[in-house]
């Protein structure tokens, strides 16, 4: 278990912080702090010494000036739904939570912009403009809880990523409080940038460049209509061929998700949504656009996936059927509980054409380690989420699950892929960073981080492994649903 390595903090810090944020803005009791000891990656835990909840930029700036004077490190936190231990305090005594900074500041539909504080919940952005026919495109599965600040830190995606892009494509400007308390306006609501793209450097930096307090986001116009199809296949190979055929035909669906037999079986057993138990794999394909063209496109897609080997294609006839299909996909992780007491997931990415190869490799890894591995993932962009099932009461299974996870990531990298498509490096995958980056690449990234945070006090010990350092993984990867 990770520990907070920094020496005990000076108790005088509490009144100093209370002066900035008020008595109710500082949490110091261990029983209350326990909630903040981990994010969605529950394997490692470490409580902060103090939690501070500022209400505005000025308070964030004052807090960071104080911590700067005292040379103390801090961890920014949104809703704590991250999946890679990104807001786990490691040698950082103070956690700064943005949850009270949750105001929508300005909505500008004429320019499709919205300005929000960083503690605003992702879904609340869309809710604020839905009635007028607009939406905020990045939609991670945790969107009912996760915050825009957290999305910016992780460069979050979601099912709509394939067509609409990830967080970095939708953030135009930010207000960033640097670790010494200085407030910097980076980017602007205007499309062109003036100077270096510092917004692009901060988005996805996992909270290591300071605390983002405000953001100007791009809004999209809601398409007139959707069509959702469920395609059944004999095996995973033919399903991945269909994915390739769809993309090659010049169609970019707004979602393209796959489940393999193990998962289909588990979902059907648990929820009875009408999936055939004998299907080797299923694809959920969703398209959007103008109403008049949807039926024609759905017919074309149906022919296309039949040609690629689909044994059956079902079209959701109405919103209820569409919701049922998505329920099957979104509940997949919940269904795993029926198959094994514990499971661990990965977030590797491969070039789309390597999907059949990586899935064969995962089957081989499953056989080699004598562990069941299911697959449910974002097929359209090659982002896999293999689920390794094990029983934590059996030490041998735990060890095998760790090794199987690592082998899967290595295989992704060997096929030209990456360690993480959307969950971030955090503390979880730091040890694997040298698989894709040279020591010099990592050095340059560390230099970039120090441009914003020379003292390395903002979310320390994340993303970049210490030179020559070795992170020993004692447990398999996370167990919470995606």
């Amino acid at each position, binding site marked *: 278990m990770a520990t907070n390595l920094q020496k005990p903090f000076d108790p005088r810090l509490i009144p100093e912080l209370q002066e900035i944020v008020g008595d109710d803005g500082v949490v110091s009791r261990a029983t209350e702090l326990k909630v903040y000891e981990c994010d969605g990656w529950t394997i490692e835990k470490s409580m902060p010494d103090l939690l501070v909840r500022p209400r505005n930029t000025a308070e964030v700036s004052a807090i960071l000036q104080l911590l700067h004077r005292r040379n103390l490190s801090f961890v920014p936190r949104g809703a704590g739904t991250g999946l890679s231990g990104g807001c786990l305090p490691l040698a950082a005594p103070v956690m700064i939570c943005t949850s009270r900074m949750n105001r929508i500041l300005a909505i500008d539909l004429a320019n499709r912009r919205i300005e929000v504080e960083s503690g605003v919940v992702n879904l609340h952005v869309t809710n604020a403009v839905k009635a007028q026919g607009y939406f905020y495109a990045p939609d991670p599965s945790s969107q009912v809880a996760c915050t825009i600040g957290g999305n910016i830190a992780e460069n979050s995606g979601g099912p709509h990523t394939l067509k609409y892009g990830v967080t970095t494509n939708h953030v135009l400007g930010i207000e960033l409080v640097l670790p010494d308390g200085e407030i910097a306006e980076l980017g602007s609501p205007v499309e062109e940038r*003036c100077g270096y793209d510092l917004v692009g450097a901060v988005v996805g930096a996992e909270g290591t460049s300071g605390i983002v307090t405000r953001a100007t986001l791009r809004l999209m116009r809601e398409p007139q209509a959707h069509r959702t199809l469920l395609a059944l296949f004999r095996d995973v190979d033919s399903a991945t061929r269909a994915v390739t055929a769809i993309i090659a035909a010049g169609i970019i669906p707004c979602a393209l998700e796959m489940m393999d037999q193990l998962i289909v079986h588990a979902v059907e057993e648990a929820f009875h949504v009408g999936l055939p138990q004998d299907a080797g794999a299923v694809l959920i394909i969703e398209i959007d656009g103008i109403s008049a063209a949807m039926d024609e496109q759905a017919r074309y897609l149906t022919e296309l996936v039949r040609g690629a080997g689909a044994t059956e294609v079902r079209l959701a006839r109405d919103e209820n059927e569409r919701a049922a299909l998505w329920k099957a996909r979104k509940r997949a992780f919940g269904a795993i509980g029926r198959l094994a007491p514990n499971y661990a997931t990965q977030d590797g990415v491969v070039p789309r054409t390597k999907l059949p190869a990586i899935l064969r490799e995962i089957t081989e890894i499953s056989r080699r380690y004598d562990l069941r591995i299911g697959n449910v993932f974002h097929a359209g962009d090659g982002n896999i989420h293999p689920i390794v099932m094990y029983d934590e009461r059996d030490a041998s299974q735990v060890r095998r699950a760790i090794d199987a996870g690592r082998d899967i990531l290595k295989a992704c990298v060997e096929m030209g892929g990456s360690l993480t498509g959307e969950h971030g490096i955090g503390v979880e995958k730091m040890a694997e960073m040298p698989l894709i980056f040279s020591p*010099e690449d990592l050095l340059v990234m560390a230099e970039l981080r120090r441009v914003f945070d020379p003292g390395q006090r903002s979310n320390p010990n994340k993303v970049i492994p210490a030179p020559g350092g070795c992170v020993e993984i004692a447990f398999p990867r996370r167990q919470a649903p995606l």
Partner: protein
Amino acid sequence: MDQLDSSELMHNLAAVLGTERVRIAHGNEAGVAATVVEPENAEQISELVHKCETDGITFAPMGASRTLAQIRSAPVRIGVSLTRMNRIVNYEPDDMTAVAEAGLTLEELNSVAAGRGQRLPCDPAKPELTTLGALVGAAKAGPLRLSEGGPRDLLIGVRFVGHGGRLIHGGGRVVKNVAGYDLMKVLTGSFGTLGIITETTFKLRPFPQNYTLAMASFDSAAEALTAASRAEAAASLIHLEVVSQSLGERFGRTGRSVVLAGFGGSRTEADHYRAFISNALRRNTQMLTANDALAGYASLRDIDFDHAPVVAELAVLPSELPQSLAACNAEFRAHAASGIAQLFLCGGRSEKEIHGAVSRWRDVARAARGYVRVLRVLDHARGGLEMFDQPNEAALGLMRRLKRTFDPHNVFNPGCFVGGI
């Protein structure tokens, strides 16, 4: 070595790179540097960078030298031409990704991708002269920015030579990837001031089906911009451009302001959009299809303002564009729905007139919380003209720190970027 004259410098460079890779600048290149080297791989650039840092010699990357020759008020010592580094390293049509060396032109990449119905949808003028390095380094974009974004949205991996001659890579070959810091964003639009980009990896996009170019002309730019905003509200467009009267002739509409809206999709979609757009433009809208549409689009993309004594890019909020353009009192080509326009003057103009115009444009931009960047100006008016607007003080402070960190010897294309970086 910084005191050496050109012939001595060339001699020393030849000793490092070989005689055949060192030459005197010609044409536009002279605006960037008097001496040009043509390395064949990143290792040679690495060696060169190392040597230049040791000896305090400045250098800058060069494609066709059109951008930097305009931006630099005085040349650096060495121009590093990437023209020999022009291979497609890897093109995976089924993955829709392409890895190519930075000296390859956009047109060369797209002519290969076109065989598979794909393209890198960045469309600055003259793709035959635009190297991928320049595309990224100068963050060049054209009409397609509306639907496809710019280089920053499409670049998924990069290799560059950084200070100390280090060979660095960021990103990868997959379209979704959050491993490590986003070095692609840092280099996009950095104008060679942080490193020399040697290889780029892009995600490609399918060509739109049934591409159609709708054209309608108007008596005034204001009317054209109003019609354009109706078109934008009516349909999901590939591009939406408005040109002022002096460019009307280019589209057969002499003396008139023209709206050029591009759309596509399935046959049914295209038919619907056609009706929406005709209705929105409320004129005898001409609909070009197939090769006529492509020719019209190329003509639109390749407006290069060669005749203009000064060209600058205005960026404001889209809703503020019409009134900002009116206040600028200049001819223009506008990416109307993105809030961006290239402003220019016509005819012979004095230095005073040019500086006065740019100053007015800057005032207009500032009032609308936007920017103006001078893209090109005749030599006689170059002196004393800032090419870039300055960002706010805090942002500029970070930019200076970034520059010092990535280029501690201040030899990577110094002194021509924002705030004199």
